[in-house]
C-alpha cells in the first residue's frame, strides 16, 4: 500500500495496536497501509500491551480472540469501561466457531469484528470505516449532531492552507441564558435544535459552493461560506430567527416581548426576546495564516455585534 497521508482518509497519521499471536494477521495488517498513514504496533500477548495502551492510547485497537494470556473480550472491556479511553475503537478478530453462538454485544463493547479467513480488501475497508466513524462520533455535538470544535478547526486550517477565500461566521444567541433560566433546559434545547436546523438549511440553500456548519457547544454555532454569499446568509438567518423564535415563548411573554427572570446576582430583571448575533471574519488574498488569528478577530467583532440587543451581524473586511 503506497498511499500517502494526503491521499488517505485521515488528517494525521493514525496509530494502532494489534494484540495477537497470529503472525500472518500482523503481516497482512502492516502491508495494507503505509506506515505514514496507519502504523501497527504488534503485541503477541495482551498483558504487555495494556499499560502502554493506558499511557499512550493508540487511535485503534485490534484484538484477537486467540490471545492466550488474557481473553480478547476482557481487553476490550478494560478499554471501554473507562471514560478516558472509551472512544478508542476496538475491532475483535475471531474464528468462525467463535461466533456460532451469538455474542452479547451489550456486555462485550467492541466497535466491529472480523471473521477468519481474512479477506485483505475487506479488512482494509472495515478498519478504515471504523476509524472514520470513530472520528465522526467523537466530534459530533451531542444535541444537534453537527460537527464540533475539532472538525471546525481542521476545516478552517485546511482552507487557509489551500489559499481558498472564505468567510467564517460565529453565531450566538443573545439572552439565551435567561430563557433557559426561566423556561428550563428542555425548552432551551428546543431553541438550540431549531437554530441548528435554521442555520443548516440556510447555508445549504447555496448549492455548489464551499459551505460548512458547526456547533461549538451551547448556543455557539459556526458557518463558512464564500465571501460573496455571507452577507445575504446573515440577513436570512436573522430574518428567519426573529420570525420563528417568538413561537417558543409562552403567549403572555410573547405578547409583552420580554421575559422576567433572575440574573446571575439573583436580581429580578427583564430580558428581551432572544436575538442572534453574528460575527463574520473574511479571509481573502490569503491574509490569514492560522486558525488562531481567525478566532481572535472574531471575538472582537462579536463584542460589537452584541452591543445591539436586537439580532445583528458585523462583517470584518480589513485587507491584508
Amino acid at each position, binding site marked *: 500500500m503506497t498511499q500517502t497521508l494526503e491521499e488517505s482518509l485521515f488528517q494525521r497519521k493514525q496509530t494502532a495496536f494489534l494484540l495477537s499471536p497470529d503472525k500472518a494477521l500482523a503481516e497482512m495488517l502492516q502491508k495494507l497501509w503505509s506506515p505514514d498513514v496507519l502504523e501497527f504496533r504488534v503485541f503477541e500477548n495482551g498483558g504487555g500491551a495494556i499499560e502502554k495502551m493506558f499511557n499512550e492510547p493508540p487511535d485503534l485497537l485490534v484484538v484477537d480472540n486467540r490471545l492466550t494470556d488474557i481473553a480478547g473480550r476482557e481487553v476490550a472491556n478494560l478499554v471501554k469501561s473507562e471514560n478516558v479511553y472509551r472512544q478508542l475503537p476496538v475491532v475483535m478478530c475471531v474464528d468462525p466457531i467463535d461466533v456460532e453462538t451469538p455474542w452479547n454485544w451489550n456486555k462485550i463493547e467492541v466497535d466491529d469484528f472480523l471473521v477468519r479467513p481474512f479477506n485483505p480488501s475487506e479488512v482494509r475497508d472495515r478498519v478504515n470505516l471504523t476509524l472514520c466513524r470513530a472520528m465522526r462520533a467523537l466530534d459530533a455535538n451531542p444535541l444537534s449532531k453537527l460537527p464540533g470544535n475539532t472538525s471546525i478547526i481542521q476545516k478552517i486550517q485546511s482552507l487557509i492552507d489551500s489559499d481558498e477565500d472564505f468567510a467564517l461566521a460565529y453565531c450566538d444567541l443573545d439572552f439565551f441564558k435567561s430563557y433557559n433560566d426561566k423556561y428550563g433546559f428542555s425548552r432551551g434545547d428546543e431553541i438550540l*435544535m*431549531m437554530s441548528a*436546523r435554521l442555520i443548516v438549511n*440556510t447555508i*445549504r440553500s447555496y448549492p455548489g459552493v464551499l459551505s460548512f456548519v458547526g456547533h461549538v457547544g451551547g448556543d455557539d454555532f459556526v458557518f463558512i461560506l464564500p465571501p460573496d454569499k455571507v452577507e445575504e446568509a446573515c440577513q436570512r438567518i436573522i430574518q*428567519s430567527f426573529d420570525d420563528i423564535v417568538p*413561537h417558543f415563548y409562552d403567549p403572555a411573554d410573547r405578547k409583552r416581548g420580554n421575559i422576567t427572570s433572575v440574573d446571575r446576582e439573583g436580581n429580578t430583571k427583564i430580558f428581551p426576546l432572544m436575538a442572534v448575533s453574528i460575527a463574520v471574519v473574511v479571509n481573502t488574498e490569503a491574509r490569514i495564516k492560522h486558525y488562531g488569528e481567525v478566532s481572535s478577530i472574531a471575538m472582537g467583532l462579536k463584542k460589537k455585534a452584541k452591543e445591539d440587543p436586537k439580532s445583528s451581524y458585523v462583517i470584518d473586511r480589513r485587507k491584508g
Partner: protein
Amino acid sequence: MEPDLKTSVKGEILAVKDLPTLPHVLDEVTKLIENPETSSEAIAKVISTDQVLSAKVLKMVNSPIYGFPGRISSIQHALVLLGFNVIRGIIISTSVFDMMVQSMKGLWEHSLGCATACNIIARRAGFEDPEEYAVAGLLHDLGKVVTAVQLPDLHKTISDTVVAKNIPYYYAEKDVLGFGHDRINAWLARHWGLPPNIREAMARHHSPQLAEFYKPMSCVVHIGDFLVRLFEFGNGGDDHTAYLRPEALMELKFKMSDLDKVMDEMSDQLLEVSDLTL
C-alpha cells in the same frame, strides 16, 4: 352498526401510511423544487394550497426527532426548518389520487376556500399570525380525506346517505359511523403531533363553543367553513348551509357588518384562488 366500529375505524384511520394528493399541486411543487433558484417562500405558497402536503409538512417538523415538537404552526416556518432535501423527500413519497376519486377535487377547493376565509377573518379580528388560522382552515376536513383513503366503503356509504336522506355530510357521518370527521381530526392531530392550536381548531370547528384553550382559532375556522359554503366554493360533501353559532361571532366580537366586509374580501380572493385549482 357494529359495537366496536369506533375502535376499528380509529385503528384504520391512524394506520394510514400513504396519503395521496391531487396531481396538479404535486406537479407544481415538483417543478418548483427542481429549480435550484426557487425560494422557500414560493414553495410554501404552493404547499399552503394543499391540505395533504401541508399536513405532512407540519407532522414532520413537529416530530420529536427535530427537537421542538408542537411549536410550528406555519408552513413557511416549517419549510425553513425542514430544508429542501427533506421537502423533496416528502414530495417524492407522495402519490396522487387515481382518477376515480373526483369528489376529492371539490373537497380540495372547499378546504382552500376555507383557508382563504380564515385568513381574512383572523386579520379582521386583529389576530396575530393570520397564516396559522389559514392552516387550521386548510386542514379542517382532513378527516374526510383520510376516511376516503383508508375506508373507501364506509366513505361511499356516507356519501350515499347524504343523497338518500338529504342531510349534511357531518350528520351522515354520525349516522353511519356514530361520530364525525371532527373526532377523526382530533385523533389524527394528536397522533401526528400537530401544534395544539391547530389540533383544537380541527377538533372543534363544528362546536367552537366547547373549545377550551384556543377558542378564537376554533371560532375562526367555524365561521370560515360556514362562509365558504355560502359561496358554494368547492364541495364539503353536501350542498347544505351549515349552522352558524352565535358564540363564534361573539368570541371574535364580530357584528354583521364585519361579516359583510369579510365576504366582500372573500369574493375578490376566491376569484384569484380559483386560478390555482385546475
